[in-house]
């Protein structure tokens, strides 16, 4: 998984400093003109990133959703109509029709970097 993603990544973009993101929650960043939602699971020491636009009604709101897990798998709930998405593969857990694009994230020297294809 890790390796496959590594190979496809063209560029790691510095999004923002770690402390700019809320603990155990999400925030949006603008990266190369694209809105990306970044999630900081402080308790697990993990980070995730997805497109910020919800595929349900097109609202730019995924970053404002409540985060959490379902049986250990990280997820986010869109604040609008509470559709929930897996943060591992972006699949909608409540409605198979929808899918979020995910991005790899890494932390370097106190910064959050996002891998763009």
């Amino acid at each position, binding site marked *: 998984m890790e390796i496959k993603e590594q190979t496809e990544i063209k560029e790691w973009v510095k999004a923002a400093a770690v402390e700019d993101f809320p603990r*155990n929650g999400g925030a949006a*960043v603008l990266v190369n003109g694209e*809105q990306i939602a970044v999630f900081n699971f402080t308790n697990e020491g993990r980070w995730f990133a997805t497109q910020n636009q919800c595929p349900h009604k097109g609202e730019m709101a995924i970053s404002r959703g409540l*985060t*959490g*897990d*379902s049986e250990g798998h990280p997820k986010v709930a869109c604040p609008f109509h509470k559709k*929930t998405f897996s943060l591992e593969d972006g699949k909608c857990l409540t409605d198979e029709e929808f899918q979020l694009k995910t991005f790899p994230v890494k932390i370097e020297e106190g910064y959050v970097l996002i891998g763009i294809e």
Partner: protein
Amino acid sequence: MKKRIVLIGNGMTGYKFCEKFASSPLKEQYKLVVFGEEPHPAYDRVHLTSYYTGTVPDELLLAPAGWYDEHNIELLTNEKVIAIDREAKTVSSEKEKTYSYDILVLATGSSAFVPPIEGIEKEGVFVYRTFDDIDKIKKYIPKASKAAVIGGGLLGLEAAKAVLDDGLPTSIIEFASRLMPRQLDPQGANILKSKLENFDLEVLLNKSTEKITGNGKLEGLQFADGSTLDADLLVISAGIRPRDELARSAGLEVHQRGGIVVNSKMETADPSIFAIGECVVVHNMVWGLVAPCYEMAEILVNNIGGQSQEFLGFDLSSKLKLIGTDVASFGEALVESDKIKTIVYENKSRGIYKRLNISEDGKYLLGGILVGEAEEYNMLKQVVNNKIALPENPEDFILGARGGEGAAGIGVGDLPDTAAICSCENITKGDILSAIETDGAESVPKIKKCTKAGTGCGGCAPMLDDLLIHYMKSQGREVRKTICEHFDYTRQELYDLIKINEFKSYDELILAYGKGSGCETCKPVVASLLASIWNDLITKQDTIQDTNDRFLANIQQRGVYSVVPRIPGGEITPEKLIVIGQVAKKYDLYTKITGGQRIDLFGARVDQLPAIWEELIDAGFESGHAYGKSLRTVKSCVGSTWCRYGMHDSVSFAIEVEDRYKGLRSPHKLKGGVSGCVRECAEARGKDFGIIATEKGWNLFVCGNGGANPRHADLLASDIDKETVVKYLDRFLMYYIKTAEPLTRTSKWLASLEGGLGYLKDVVVKDSLGIGNKLEEEMAELISHYKCEWTEVVRTPELRNKFRHFVNSDEIDNNIKFVPLRDQKIPAKA
């Protein structure tokens, strides 16, 4: 060609006949045509009072109109049958249609008995049996100022409560020397009487009404003993009259006191004609409850199908809740004989009376009466009906705490599988256990869905609960409403854990008592609990809040937000109105007067919120909490300061109450209203708490709402002064906050509260749990921590900084787009 069954009457019994027909092989041989005189398809007459209090007709229908079609049953509503031609085997309707039948079933029910009193035809006199009757009463209420009900039986008391709750002083007039003479003995009736009088219902016994006075319109009643009573609205509830007029004119036998005579197989003398329900006399009596009527319907369907079942009489036990008071009688309740032993428990100060009738040999329970407290009813009824041998000390039944398990050592486990748990639908204990076991119906709603038990009068619901708990326990399992997979605790347990451990954050709680990373269910629940317990600033833990709470504003289409400043009681100065106008203009916000008497400014970007609020706060506004599960508004009417009808100053009181509870976090949102008189211009009874001025003080109503299931609030206390209103409100709100399930409005909470309104009154008004002071202190503590959330954000740079769309850029969200509408803007559709 199929043969035809014509059914006259689409009431409760008629519907049951349709339902049983639709699931029997009869439907292959017969076409069923149903005539109903009323405009609506069959509805739940037993819950007619909930129509009175606002439930929409659709919710009370026994089956939607489309159901008949789907089952190939032809239903003709608003179509009264006026003649039967037994020779030609036809019926004809008022609309001059004629239908032939092979089998004719009469289920014409009964009508309210209206005694021939002089002046009974006057305007303002009503009966209480159909939707139409209720509509008429409702229409008349605003013109009335004092109500009377003739008849102190079951239905009369129900009608009296309904009009009393509409704000009319009400008197009950009973001919006999006691209330509910068919169900209660003198001692029990006496206790009930004093309970009702506590609720301001006047009870007049031994009164025979001789004349109804007034000029065209009812103005008063005159009794045989020479006394009189003023009243301008009268509901007659003096018993029922079986509707046998069709049968009578067709030459079928009717009983001398009314009612179509049938044998125990529901047959009349004409082999093609049958009759069922409240219109018949069988075993020499009219059976005026739904359960026996349903049984007749089922027996008839089976008999037409070739069986030979008989109606052998039925248990006429009944339990009802009258004005928050439980009243039940079961088995042989009223026997007076030296041959039986009775055990009586009476507690006048608490308004409780219980009586058990025991067989001479002391082995069996024959029947009994319960007033004021009737939790044991279901169990006792089972003990009678199943002839369960009594334990050594049967008095434990009425002295012990609860009926379900424990009392006198007999519990649901001791019932035979054949025990009828739901008598309306005739569902046995065995049926219910098999639904739980084989169909996995592991909650009361699921059992109801699976078996139909509890869908009639609903009286057996506590027993379903007991059965489920008993079953789960026998499997070594428990039934608990835990929050979600991250916390194996109920909301109530989490409330206590947070308090005892003095946890101030979600992280502390999940570390100590939960697992994983939480989710969108438990985070807001815990956030709300923390806020309800500590009233700390919620923005400190912004990522556990539901969206609206995270940004202290309601999210709207295109991800913009609304701004609703608090306008207590709806009162606002011109200066403040101007500021709202200026702010709206500067930030180009759409403005609208809300349904809650304030002004909503829509279309703000998240990054604009702090600046907008800063300007509003500088002008003296505060957060309106339109985004929170917390106090919203306390609506007011203009009241005695201006209004010619106003009794007291409702605006000042509304402002006082709104200021007191502003910012209070609760399981769901809270709304209040204060009206200056019964005309109710503030719609206070549509609110979680409503205060209405009376001549002597204020009436306090609780647990009303609008929303999807509107409900009028119930009277908690009447004619109390302001201090007492506030005291009761403190207790009421705090008790709700402590015990309600997440996202449960006060109305739903009350519906699920064991003991209902009576219990709530005991806790709040009588302080039966002895926690009144504690609740008041806890409320005082919460109130003392109030801070305007927006003021804190605006003044704290670190909090203010959270209101940005991107954390790495000051660009604005390019997804936000507006289109014009009537000189303002609205979000463009995504």
